[in-house]
């Protein structure tokens, strides 16, 4: 049985149709790259899966359950946003610990867990740093750690490596790939970079092929 199924989803904004009859399914542990031009609806599809946008028609199923009407915070689906969306009023450590706090994890445990995740992405000892002091690559790593710390079954990555210079981009692509495989999460990677897609994903899907 597929882990995640997007089934015949339609989305339109004020008359402009973005998704028509879009369908996609992922097996457990599968990493799919979604390629397409800008404006082709890649981000919108991710937002439908995350529950940030409600589809006009169609369903989203997670492990056999229809989650189309489930609010975002109850879906257990993690998302790394294109521009990270780190919380500017919280320290690096508190950003990473945010999801754990929402899950009701105690303060000490949260702190330890966040430190462990920061170490895992190569940012040990940055926990007390202000997020505005991070470099572009560091901020990406914090965003990854923050999402993965909640142990989501499905992770959505919305152009997570856009805007980095080539060298850093390639290095981070390898790190992300290793991390996702190691945690054996199911993931959708939205990108327009073929190399990045090949490095991280096991299967590449063209947006034009799944969106009628």
């Amino acid at each position, binding site marked *: 049985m597929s882990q995640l199924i997007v089934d015949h989803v339609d989305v339109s904004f004020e008359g402009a149709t973005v998704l028509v009859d879009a369908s996609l399914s992922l097996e457990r542990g599968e990493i799919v790259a979604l390629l397409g031009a800008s404006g082709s609806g890649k981000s919108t599809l991710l937002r439908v899966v995350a529950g940030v946008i409600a589809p006009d028609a169609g369903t989203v199923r997670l492990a056999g359950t229809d989650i189309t009407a489930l609010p975002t915070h109850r879906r257990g689906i993690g998302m790394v946003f294109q521009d990270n969306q780190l919380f500017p009023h919280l320290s690096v450590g508190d950003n990473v610990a945010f999801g754990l706090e*929402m899950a009701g994890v105690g303060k000490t445990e949260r702190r330890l867990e966040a430190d462990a995740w920061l170490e895992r992405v190569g940012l040990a000892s940055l926990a007390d740093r202000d997020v505005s002091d991070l470099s572009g690559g560091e901020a990406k790593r914090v965003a990854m750690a923050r999402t993965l710390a909640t142990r989501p079954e499905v992770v959505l990555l919305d152009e997570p490596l856009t805007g980095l210079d080539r060298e850093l981009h390639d290095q981070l692509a390898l790190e992300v790939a290793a991390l996702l495989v190691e945690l054996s999460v199911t993931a959708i990677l939205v990108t327009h970079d073929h190399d990045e897609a090949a490095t991280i994903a096991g299967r590449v899907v063209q947006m034009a092929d799944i969106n009628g």
Partner: protein
Amino acid sequence: MNPINALPRRVLAALGVAPVVALLMFFFWPTATLLARAIDTEALSSTFGRRGTWNVVWFTLWQAVVSTVVTLALGLAPAYVVARFEFTGRRLLVAVLTAVFVMPTVVMGAAFLALLPDSLDRTAWAVIGAHVVFNLAVVVRTVGVFWERLPADIESAAATLGASPWRVFTTITLPLLRPALLATASIVFVFTFTSFGVVRVLGAPGTRTIEVEVWRRATQLGEIGEAAVLSILQLAVLGATLGWSSLAQRRHSRALDLEPAAVRRRARTGIEKRRVGLVSVTTALVCVAPLTALAARSFSTPSGWSTAAWTRLGRTEVRPGIRLGLDPIAALGNSVENAAWATLFAVLFGAIASLAIAASRRGGRMLDIGLMLPLGTSAVTIGFGMLITFDQAPFDWRAEWWLVPVGHALVATPFVVRTAVGVLRSVDPDLQAAATTLGASPTRAWLAIVVPFLWRPLAVGAALAAAVSLGEFGATSFLSRSGGETIPIAIEQLVGRTGSLLQAQGYALATMLAAITILLVVVVDSTGQMQQRTPPTRLDALPVDQTGRR
């Protein structure tokens, strides 16, 4: 700009001199006089020795705190809806909120008097209710401007991490809005702490603010020293509040990537649609109800519904043969005359000052701040200061026709300057540079290029100045003389007469003033629209989505 192409110093100095002299004469000198009168051990001890003083200070403080907290709490819902959603009637809702905000204080007081049942009239709750409705627009505007540019994705990010909508609001949205909330809170606090017109109409002996007490002791009891002490006490509280708020805002400001422009969307889900509908309709009703009650009560006379209050506006007989020492029709004439002069003064000085401010750096900044001060000082303080300063030859100007318009102009000039300086500063310096390469001297280039940009903001500023003058009550309460009553003064005197035809006449006058004010705001708003409607000059500024989509 290269300093050799800058406007010559003598031109700048010539521009700056008139506003500086006027400011020194009519603002700083009276304020200094007030201070001198207040630093007097006898006045100090008699003021603070009175129990009444402490009651007034306590009431002023607690009603301002309660008004501020309630306004913020109730204003967040409309602020959210207006900032985040595009919906039919959105512009209208903002316009209604703005219309209420610019209502003269006396009109707002009269509207609440008309709206509330007699049992609530002249209570603290009436005063607080009026303050809250009055200032909702401050929350919607000040918080909304920030909220509409707060990236929605940051809230989505929190939701994907497991935060429920309520926790997203408390852990992400509220902390990020904090600087805007602090700014709003301090503005509303200052407005309600210095409330005068609303309290004069709705208050009772137990519900007097410091402002009202200053007026009462100065003009009714003749205790100038005590009134001066209270004025200075209030100035100190205002200064402390504004200082604290700017410090706090700096401390809480975050390096946050705001969206370059407002991001609004239509409500998509049923819950969203219901929420937007409920909040916008409720807000509109809350704003419209007092003004509707005002108009309705102007047709309600002791002998039932009639147009008597409107048709007999000129005849103010308390009983047959006994007249009220007041003529509403004459008040109308006085107000229009005052407004015409005040607008002329404000536009003239505002225009010159704006040109000077926009063209120079440090001196301009000083003048800018100086001209803003009267706005933060409270009109009562200005009127009172002028009253006790210009009472001796050769400066005995109490009977001069221009004293009231000058007081109004002091309060109105900042509105002219704010609109004009913004436009002048946005003039591309390259335009002036282009003119100089074509052979124009710096002064010629400035006259030919920069000055013509003034006309539209001046039209807006003039309408605002007229609205300010027509509704001005604080300074006028001190400066207007018997026979020279303005509409707000007449309204305050008439609505105090419960249940009579005179009260209905007060409501009629207030309705008229409300209508004129709304008309002026519509003029301002449509002029602003014209400015926005200039065609985009850069095609490459179009959003990618419009060209790149499929």
